[in-house]
């Protein structure tokens, strides 16, 4: 049943793909304008000059509009991903749509997981789309800086590989470092969303002032988890001087917090649901 819930959740939120496509498309427009203008100036115009010398006249106007649209799309992408995930939980499980969702033969824990997994996937895809959009814009500069694409890629790989050294044990390689980074990111996102879900599940169990109560619960849970974090990690940071071990312990702590928020949200949806 969880798989079916996730399938329907992705179908209901598939419009995210359009937003990502718009972001990448606008980046492509900027890259093309850059490429055309740099090529027209002889290919090495950026090597020692100002960008204002490269793009002038009508192109500059179009470029300015494109950059503004790109900046707007960047903001819109992230607000859509985060606000969309939070709003989806509220309307689908705590609003009128909850009358349908909570009478499906699935458990509250499955409902939460079915909201959480797509939210994390969309967030990661949003980050990838944003990074890809910057990479696309950089492509527009390539003729100017004279660095071939494969070389840029290799430089990136080298940088990432060396950054991965010492994360888990000395000599850790790219794949392990990437996995560790991804795992930390997923756990951090899970903690973030479950913190909000738990706050809303508690806040919306009340009769009145439900949104304000959710914010209040969010603050209380933040303080509680922050104090616990300090109590655990202040002595640990004195005891250990290995940053990577501490980082992994922090990830473990985030996972425990996420599990705690999950249990709170599931219990309130099961025992204190209050649809109005």
């Amino acid at each position, binding site marked *: 049943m969880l798989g079916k819930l996730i399938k329907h959740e992705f179908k209901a939120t598939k419009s995210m793909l359009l937003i990502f496509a718009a972001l990448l498309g606008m980046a492509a427009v900027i890259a093309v304008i850059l490429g055309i203008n740099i090529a027209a100036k002889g290919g090495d115009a950026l090597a020692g000059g100002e960008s204002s010398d490269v793009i002038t006249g009508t192109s500059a106007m179009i470029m300015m509009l494109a950059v503004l649209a790109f900046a707007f799309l960047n903001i819109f992408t992230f607000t859509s991903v985060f606000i969309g995930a939070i709003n989806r939980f509220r309307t689908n499980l705590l609003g009128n749509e909850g009358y349908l969702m909570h009478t499906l033969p699935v458990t509250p824990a499955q409902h939460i997981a079915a909201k959480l997994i797509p939210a994390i996937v969309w967030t990661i895809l949003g980050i990838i789309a944003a990074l890809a959009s910057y990479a696309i814009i950089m492509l527009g500069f390539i003729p100017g800086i004279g660095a071939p694409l494969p070389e840029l890629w290799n430089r990136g790989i080298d940088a990432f590989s060396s950054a991965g050294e010492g994360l888990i044990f000395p000599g850790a390689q790219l794949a392990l470092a990437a996995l560790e980074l991804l795992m930390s990111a997923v756990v951090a996102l899970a903690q973030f969303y479950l913190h909000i879900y738990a706050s809303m599940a508690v806040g919306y169990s009340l009769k009145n002032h439900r949104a304000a109560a959710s914010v209040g619960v969010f603050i209380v849970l933040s303080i509680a988890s922050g104090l616990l974090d300090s109590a655990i990690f202040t002595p640990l940071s004195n005891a250990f001087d290995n940053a990577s071990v501490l980082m992994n312990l922090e990830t473990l702590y985030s996972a425990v917090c996420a599990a705690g928020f999950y249990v709170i949200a599931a219990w309130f949806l099961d025992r204190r*649901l209050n649809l109005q």
Partner: protein
Amino acid sequence: MSEYILDCGGVTKRFGYVTALNNVSLRLTPGKIAGLLGPNGSGKTTLIKIINKLLVPDEGAVYINGLRPGTETKKLISYLPDCESVNGNMSVDELIGLFSDFYADFRADTSRAMIDNLGIDPKVKLKTLSKGNREKVRLIMAMSRRAKLYLLDEPIGGVDPAARDYIINSIITNYSPDAAVLISTHLIADVEKILDEVIFIREGSVLLHENADALREREGKSVDAVFREVFRC
């Protein structure tokens, strides 16, 4: 397997200082259509929510086919809430897909035939339909299941008389003969003709639970007339 499809015993629910349900006990047997009749705020929706596990009672117990409310009982209950519970951005096709995925007893062909009879394009989003058609679509979804217990909360509230006839006709022609139907409403005259049993509820307490024909015979008047007399302000 219980003799009663629905068995509520001593159900009490309080919201702060307000007692929404006070020691409610009632039983329904399969094959009967019962009307849960009471004025606004009498506790009808609260009781239906508790049966659906959308609320947890403070006291008492509810059994559906011998089971406490939970994931298993949701497979047995077909519920029509008294609000717009479907995302308006969904199409009728997507709604049918959702019900097919989650309810093994859902008859997609029946629902498609009924939607077709109404002349509704299954590809259009629900929010583009009229209120009456959205109500009909939600009812079609509920009645296209082969459920053991149908809980219909105000199914004819807010629709025109022609739509009411369609809804009532859909209920009596589509419910499973081995199922029980509980219809909550305060529009007695429209549903009276299809009721086998009537349950009067006021201020969270059951005043009366009786066979509809026996009530009419005993009082010498329609259920609607008895209701107006009992609930006169």
